Every structure is written in structure tokens, then in C-alpha cells.
């Protein structure tokens, strides 16, 4: 089976090279025979990569330690659940997994577009194939997951204990789905540049791809935060680690892209800008991969082998410079009749939203690479950690939060004084009431506390803006049709999925901002060394340490569990069981925290240390409003689903528009 896995990777590479050449030649020479021949290659490549992946999964599930990769990331005792996830636990498998996702996306793109848009699609497929070829080259010749061990050992080294968490099955695939997904809009953007079809056709074709990729990247970041929160045991969820930054930057740029494409769709403006943004988003996904795999920057996420980073760096530069050259070459065609009626308009607010999003992305990028710059200039490697990012990004983030409220409410084209008064009076009044009401309740003084106060006031302002928009739509519907309030609300949302779905996503963003602010400013923690039966207090909780239990969970894992009783107002509230897990052959034990999460706050318990006399060091965090962030994530998921839901009305409008403009990309046969 391993030979089959290795062989199919080679077949996939050869087929991808052929497919890429055939697609380009079919488009350039207008040769339908070559197009029909290339038409079969996406499925063949996907099939080969899938077979190869199944072979590797089989290796994990059957404990085939003749495979070096299986030996390095699995062992006999490992749960089947984690054996499946071990596939992407290391460098080699994760690259194969990336290739599998990319070929899967390519097949879907192929089936969606094989009989239409024939001026653009062959080039888009060729670009997708170039990226597939790069990854297949790596898995064939640099990081082959089917590398053998001549004398197979009886057992494997096992998966890193930190990765033995259910999030391991969810977080990396979600993030990869986002990362890889942006390849599709990028490929269509490049194809539009090559084929000179530079209207908003490529944006409309890839809108759902962009939304899906954005959604997965957003959820991937949140899942990663959630994983860090429950696994790393330091009471936090985001450490501004370089690899966290690497996943955060494309998300910011993609968010800017999602907003600015609306202006191109509505007003046929900002073509160069949108091209640049999608190029930058893709480049940032490759940059993130470079950081993870180069070992250049210290991070908890980096893989063992460092040399691979240079392949990514070379690929990054090739992509960057070739796309820049292409944009420059097409500049005359990308020029549009840019006109704005007023500085005070939604169009302007979108531009400032782009500026702030890119400002945060740049600050994050700058902080990530500054240690390298410092080493190059001064010969001293410094660290750029959370204090830097918090001080720089928080004020920009707050300005962005204000724009989340202003953007949807301010009028398109021109905002007059009268409509500014009309649209903003109520939200500003709500924000003013919130500011007055919160001032005596919320502690003020330190920078964090002041920022938190501003955040809460802005959250109220944004929520008011959005809810008033919902109310206006619902009231108008109720006035025209005899519908109940909920019926009208549902109809209004359903008939304008993109707009109201977007508003719901904004509500999710508000919840995340509020959650971050609350947990950063008002959290507290205490660390106590306790003997059995001892009690201590934190924020109204009485915590009694009861006992310590050691369990031999498996032949390689021992669990040491502390049991604590939590009382509130004199009555039993919760039994906490934080633990430490010791794995054979691992230097450091792994903390398994116990968390009781409520809407108000999380009670977060860590067993920090213990002694032979059963005394234990317990660390307790009270983290307010953390669950708001996770709720915000689900609200974003709900809003994105509504935005992406197929819309017959929009399809009909688009069809009518296509008819008016004849066809967007006429096929060679129609010419």
C-alpha cells in the first residue's frame, strides 16, 4: 500500500504538469481538443492524491511503523480519533493534507465551471495547477510522507501530548480550509488579469469561495484560541505568537477585500485595489506557511524541519513579483471612472475600513518580522510579544469597531447633515446612555480599563446601529404587508440575505470585541499551595481542595487529578477536577484545565504542581465574558451561512444583468 501511495503522488505530479500546460495551450491557441483533454486532469490528480492520503491513513490505523512519519507521530496506544488526526500532526502529512484540500477545491471549481466562462476558467485552472505542482513537488521530493525505516520499530514515538486534544481534529483542518480556499479567488483574479476580462466577473464567480474561505479562516482562528485556552493552561486564549499572527493577517486582508469588492460590484471602482488585496491575502497565506515551516521565528507552532521554509520563500517571491508585474502590465485596463459624490459616504467609510484593517495587518506583520530586521541591522535578536501588539493594535481596532457601526448606516453616495442626524441620532443616544450608565459601574484609571470602557460604549453604538437597521426593514415590511413582527423580520432578512447576513456577522464581531475587552480588563487570578481540606476565596467563590488521585490511564499515560469543591453563597456550586497528564518519554507534563463557563465569567482551574504529601498548588482564574467570544464565533457562523445561502432573487437579477451584457465571458465557440 505504501508503494501505491508513493506512486500515486508521482502520477498526480505528472498529470498536474500536463493539465497545467494543456489548459494554458488550450486557452492561448483556442484549441478545444486540448481543453477537453485537460478537462480530465483535475479528477485524476484529486483521485491520485486521495489514494495516497488513504494509504497514509491506513499506515496510521494499522500501526505501520515502517513509515517514518507514522512512527514519529503515532504509537499503538494512541486513540483511533488521534490516529486519524496525526495525519496532519507533522510537516510531511500536513503538506499532503494541504494538497488533498487544494485538489478537492480544484475539482469542485472544475465541475462548477467546466462548461462556462471559458475565457477565464482555463487560466484559473492553470494557476490552481501551478500551486498544486508546487505542493506535489514538495511531498514527492522534499517531505515524502512514505519515507521508510529499514528495520521498523515495534512502537512509535507517539503524538505530542499537547496535540492530543479534540481540537486537534477540528482546528487545523478548519484553518487549512480557509488558507487553501483563498487559492480559488486568487486563481480567478490572476486568470482575469491574464485573459484581460477585468470587470467584476471574477469577483462574482468567486464570491462564495471568498466567503467560505473567510469563514473557515475566522473560525480556525477562534478554534485555535479556544484550544489554547483549554490546553495550554495559562488562562488566556491569544498570545500574539508569530504563527497566530500568520493566520490573523490574511483574515484581516480578506476582510478588507470582502468589503471593498462591494464598491467594485456597485460602482465599478477600485479594480486595482481589489486585485492587490486578493493577491496579498494569498501571499499572506504562503507567508504564514513559511513562518511555520522555516524555523526563522520562534513559535510554539513551528514544525521540526526548518529547511522547507526556503522553498516557500522562493515560491512567495515568484508569486509576488509575477503578480505585481501582471497588475502593472494591465494597469491601463484596470483603470475605471472613479467618481465619488461626497467625502461623507458609505464608499469613503469602506475605504477607511480598508485602511484600518490593513493598518492592523501591517502592525502585526511589522511586529512579526521586526526581530529579523533587528538582527539584520543591529545584530541583536529581540522579542516582540503581546505588550507591543496590544498597545499598537488596540487603538486601531477601536477605530475599526466604530466604523463597523458607521459603515452600514451612512448613506451610499452622499451623506447630508439631515440624514446623518436621522441615522445616527438614536445610536449616538444609546452610546451616550451607555457611557453615562457604565461610568460609575466600571473601574476606570488604567489604560486597559479605559480602553475597555470605550470598547463597551462603542459596542452599544454598533449594536444600536445594526438593530435599528433591522427595525427599519421590519417596520417597512409590516407597513406594506400584514405580517407579524417576527414574520416580517424573517422575510426582510431572507430577501436580503447578503446585507442582513453581514449585519449578523457584525453582531458576532461586537460580541468578540466585548468578550476580549471584558476578559482582559477584569480578569483576576490567584495561586495557592494547599493541603487537603484547606479553603480559599476568589471573587465570591469558596474553593476547598479535597483530594489528589493518580490513575494509570494507559501504559504510556498517567493522570493526576485534583478534586476541588466550589461553593457560592454557602451552597455547592461546582466540583472541579483539573489534572496533569504524564506521558512516557516526555519531559514536561501536560495540564488539563477544568473550566466552568457561564455568560458572566469563566472559573478556570489549573493543577500547577503537587507533592508526595498530597498537597497541591492550584491556580484559579476568574475570566469574565470569555464565553461572549465563542458565542460571537457562532453568531458569525450563522450570519455567514445566511449571506452564502443561495438567493434566487439575486441569481435572477444577475441573470438579467448577464443577458443585458450578453455573456460575461463568451466561450470560444460563441466568438
Amino acid at each position, binding site marked *: 500500500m505504501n508503494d501505491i501511495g508513493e506512486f500515486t503522488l508521482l502520477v498526480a505530479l505528472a498529470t498536474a504538469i500536463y493539465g497545467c500546460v494543456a489548459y494554458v495551450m488550450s486557452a492561448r491557441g483556442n484549441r478545444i481538443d486540448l481543453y477537453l483533454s485537460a478537462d480530465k486532469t483535475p479528477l485524476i490528480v484529486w483521485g491520485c492524491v486521495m489514494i495516497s492520503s488513504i494509504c497514509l491513513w491506513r499506515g496510521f490505523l494499522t500501526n505501520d511503523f515502517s513509515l517514518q512519519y507514522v512512527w514519529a507521530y503515532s504509537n499503538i496506544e494512541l486513540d483511533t480519533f488521534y490516529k486519524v488526526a496525526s495525519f496532519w500532526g507533522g510537516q510531511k502529512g500536513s503538506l499532503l493534507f494541504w494538497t488533498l484540500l487544494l485538489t478537492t477545491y480544484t475539482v469542485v471549481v472544475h465541475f462548477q465551471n467546466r462548461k462556462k466562462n471559458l475565457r477565464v476558467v482555463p487560466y484559473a485552472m492553470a494557476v490552481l495547477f501551478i500551486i498544486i505542482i508546487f505542493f506535489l513537488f514538495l511531498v514527492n521530493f522534499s517531505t515524502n510522507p512514505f519515507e521508510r525505516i529499514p528495520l521498523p520499530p515495534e512502537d512509535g514515538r507517539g503524538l505530542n501530548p499537547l496535540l492530543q486534544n479534540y481540537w486537534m481534529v477540528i482546528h487545523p483542518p478548519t484553518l487549512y480550509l480557509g488558507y487553501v480556499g483563498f487559492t480559488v479567488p486568487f486563481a480567478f483574479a490572476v486568470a482575469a488579469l491574464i485573459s484581460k476580462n477585468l470587470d467584476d466577473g471574477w469577483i462574482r464567480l468567486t464570491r462564495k469561495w471568498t466567503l467560505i474561505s473567510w469563514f473557515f479562516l475566522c473560525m480556525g482562528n477562534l478554534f485555535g484560541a479556544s484550544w489554547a485556552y483549554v490546553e*495550554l*493552561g*495559562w488562562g*488566556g486564549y491569544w*498570545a500574539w*505568537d508569530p504563527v497566530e499572527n500568520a493566520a490573523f493577517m490574511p483574515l484581516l486582508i480578506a476582510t478588507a477585500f470582502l468589503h471593498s469588492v462591494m464598491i467594485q460590484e456597485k460602482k465599478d*471602482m477600485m479594480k486595482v485595489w481589489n486585485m492587490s488585496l486578493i493577491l496579498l491575502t494569498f501571499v499572506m497565506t504562503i507567508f504564514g506557511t513559511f513562518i511555520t515551516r522555516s524555523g526563522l521565528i*520562534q*513559535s*510554539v507552532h513551528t514544525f521540526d524541519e526548518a529547511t522547507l521554509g526556503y522553498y516557500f520563500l522562493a515560491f512567495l517571491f515568484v508569486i509576488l513579483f509575477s503578480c505585481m508585474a501582471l497588475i502593472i502590465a494591465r494597469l491601463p485596463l484596470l483603470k475605471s*471612472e*472613479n*467618481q*465619488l*459624490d*461626497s*467625502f461623507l459616504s458609505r464608499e*469613503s467609510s469602506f*475605504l*477607511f475600513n*480598508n*485602511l*484600518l484593517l*490593513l*493598518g492592523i495587518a*501591517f*502592525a502585526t506583520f*511589522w511586529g512579526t518580522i*521586526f526581530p529579523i530586521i*533587528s538582527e539584520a*541591522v*543591529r545584530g*541583536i535578536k*529581540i*522579542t*516582540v*510579544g*503581546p*505588550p*507591543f501588539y496590544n*498597545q*499598537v493594535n488596540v*487603538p*486601531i481596532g477601536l477605530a475599526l469597531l466604530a466604523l463597523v457601526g458607521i459603515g452600514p448606516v451612512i*448613506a*451610499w*453616495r452622499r*451623506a*447630508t447633515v*439631515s*440624514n446623518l442626524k436621522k441615522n445616527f441620532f438614536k445610536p449616538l443616544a444609546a452610546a451616550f446612555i451607555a457611557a453615562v450608565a457604565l461610568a460609575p459601574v466600571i473601574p476606570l*484609571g*488604567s*489604560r*486597559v480599563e479605559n480602553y475597555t470602557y470605550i470598547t463597551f460604549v462603542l459596542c452599544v453604538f454598533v449594536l444600536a446601529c445594526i438593530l435599528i437597521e433591522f427595525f427599519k426593514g421590519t417596520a417597512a415590511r409590516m407597513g406594506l404587508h400584514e405580517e407579524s413582527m417576527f414574520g416580517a423580520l424573517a422575510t426582510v432578512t431572507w430577501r436580503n440575505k447578503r446585507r442582513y447576513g453581514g449585519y449578523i456577522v457584525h453582531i458576532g464581531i461586537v460580541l468578540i470585541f466585548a468578550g476580549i475587552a471584558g476578559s482582559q480588563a477584569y*480578569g*483576576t*487570578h490567584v495561586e495557592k499551595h494547599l493541603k487537603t481540606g484547606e479553603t480559599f476565596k476568589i471573587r465570591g467563590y469558596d474553593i476547598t481542595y479535597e483530594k489528589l488521585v493518580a490513575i494509570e490511564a494507559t501504559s504510556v499515560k498517567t493522570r493526576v487529578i485534583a478534586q476541588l469543591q466550589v461553593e457560592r453563597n454557602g451552597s455547592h456550586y461546582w466540583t472541579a477536577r483539573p489534572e496533569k497528564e504524564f506521558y512516557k518519554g516526555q*519531559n514536561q507534563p501536560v495540564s488539563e484545565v477544568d473550566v466552568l463557563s457561564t455568560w458572566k465569567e469563566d472559573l478556570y482551574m489549573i493543577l*500547577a504542581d503537587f507533592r508526595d504529601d498530597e498537597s497541591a498548588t492550584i491556580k484559579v482564574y476568574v475570566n469574565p465574558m470569555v464565553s461572549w467570544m465563542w458565542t460571537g464565533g457562532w453568531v458569525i457562523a450563522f450570519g455567514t451561512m445566511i449571506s452564502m445561502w443561495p438567493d434566487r432573487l439575486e441569481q435572477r437579477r444577475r441573470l438579467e444583468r448577464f443577458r443585458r451584457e450578453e455573456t460575461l465571458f463568451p466561450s470560444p465557440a460563441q466568438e
Partner: protein
Amino acid sequence: MHMLKFFLSIFVAAWFVVSAPEISQAGSLLQDLENALMCKCDDKCGKVLINCTCSTSDKTRAKFTKLLDSGLTVDQIIKSQVDKYGETVLSAPTKFGFNLTAWVMPFVALIAGGVGVRKIINSWIGKKQKPDSEDVPEEKSATPGKYSKRLQDELDGIEL
């Protein structure tokens, strides 16, 4: 002139934020140290001390507690750590010398971007106003003032 004032005020605000003294969340001195210093364990975990849970970080915390109890200030302990490990032990760049560029550059980029956006918007508005005034002066004057204003208000209220 207004634009200059606008961006100058942003710059001053940004500078205020950057140069304002850091105040710890819980106000504890140990927490100040944990926030300011990196963990220097053998595994090179790359975590800020407050985020690290390894055995080295526990020992470091215990050591810092003793040093604080002995009367050393936070700054003195940080200086001793920098003398021992170099600047890399600090969790953020210092705010002087070359390191200042780390702090200033994001805001410089943001302000430059802001000026650029403002100029672009102005040029787009200029394009729009020019043909309007040249091509349709008669139509405009033909519409009575109150109806024109009402039409404009209605158009402003329309959600496209």
C-alpha cells in the same frame, strides 16, 4: 489645513497611547515582571512568562517573588535579566534607539495611508463635480429649489 489638523491629532493621540506608562491589569509587581519578560526555558518555548506553564517558568516566578520581597524594584529585576540574557528576554522592544521604529512605523504607515485615502477620495470627488457643473447646468436650474432638496433627501434615504 483641516486635513493637516485631523492627521496631526491622530498622530498626537497615537503618540500618547504609545508613550503612556504601562499599568498592569491587577497591579501586582510580579505580574508586571511576568508581562515584561520572556520565559527562558531550555525548550525555547518563546512564550511570555505570564503565558508559560513550564517548570522553568514556575522557578523563575518563585525567584522573582523572593527578589521583590528582598526589596528590589521591578526595573532593577528587569535590568538584571537584560544583563544576563540580553534584550531578547524583554517581551517588547524598548522605546528608544532603533527599537523605536518598531513602535512608530505602524502609525506612520497608518497616517500615510490616511493621507493617501483622503487624497484619492478628493480626486474622485473632483472628477464627479467637474462634469456635473459643465454638462447639466440648465437642468439643475430648471428644478425648483424646494423640490430639488426634497429629491436629494429622498435619494439619500434610498438603500441601494
